[in-house]
């Protein structure tokens, strides 16, 4: 590798690490919470009191 190529490597990687680490952490932190499991249907035990 040429000297320039090595210098590019050394400059590129720290920048890439910071950008991706910040992006990845934010994506992980800001992801929406898991949807709650669907509640099983509740059987009616009392007749409705509301009147049409």
């Amino acid at each position, binding site marked *: *590798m*040429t*000297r*320039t*190529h*090595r210098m*590019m*490597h*050394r400059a*590129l*990687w*720290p920048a*890439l*690490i910071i*950008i*991706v*680490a910040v*992006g*990845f952490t*934010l*994506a*992980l932190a*800001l*992801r*929406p919470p*898991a949807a709650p499991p669907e509640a099983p249907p509740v059987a009616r035990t009392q007749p409705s009191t509301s009147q049409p």
Partner: protein
Amino acid sequence: MSAGYRAVQWTRFKIVYDGVLILAVAIYIAGFLIADSRLEPPTDRLTGIIHYVHAFGSATFLMLTAILSIGPLSRLDRRFLPLLYNRRHFGVLTFFVAMTHVAFAIDWFVAMDGLPGLAIELINWPDYGKFIGFPFEALGIAAFTILLIMAATSHDFWLSFLSPTVWKALHLALYLAYALVMMHVALGALQTDQTLSLPLLLGGGFATVSVLHVLAGQRERKRDAPTPVGRDGWLIVGAPQSIPDKRARIVVARGGERIAVFRDGARIGALSNLCTHQNGPIGEGCIIDGYVTCPWHGYQFRLADGCAPQPFTDKLATYRLRLRAGAVEVDPQPLPPGTAATIEF
């Protein structure tokens, strides 16, 4: 090396390398599909396609992680050099695995009648201003385009046509592709997948590659420290016996390229450390059958004048040498490639 055009110069090593790679990928894909189907049995065609999308997508990420680890690993430990020898085939195979991931993703959109929706999502410009909600497919398309360009230009024809320096600079885009893949998954699958395995796979892979590159970079920085110079600017290499037989000591002029000073018995010669093939580190190679041999792909050059053996026409720059007060000294100004310039002690 080759004096003429050949599509692929197959060797036994390359065949074994490619065979092991293909087998490993096939085992991973099959294992992933079996495990995924047991955890979440496909209920319809769509969920079946999703399993394939995830299998080929995760394989692409792991293959990119491995490819990007090979370079620094072989800088840190020579035992990894054989992996570097055929890395381009690894890269091309990664492109085909990525292409299969893309094909299944398109199949999923087609099965959903969702292709027009995808197009609308990709040109919904306000979404590009969001972080969560960014069209992650666009990141995947950009990464895939880079992989396509790299696979298409992977052949030695393009290496020779573009020159090693331009070709290597172009192929640095793989780092960008890797970052794009990371964010493609982080803003896509990671937003709905609530398991620990995906963040661990992504974070662990990226951390591994990053640590290896930083370590290799630190090592190379130390090796770029300038070599002591005499009063007239010649670099002081040291006693002839301090150069290991059939190997080299690498010296560096301030702000200049590295110079490989080889010893072959009582003969000493200095060559450019940049192999004509891919700018590989000639000075980390050794003398085999009388020829200085690049550790990356085995390109060979005569120590006497830096010329490749017939019928090859490659030539390395050479450097003037002298013995002064028992020490070998090298003039940091290169001679025209192919100029004879060895000394004996």
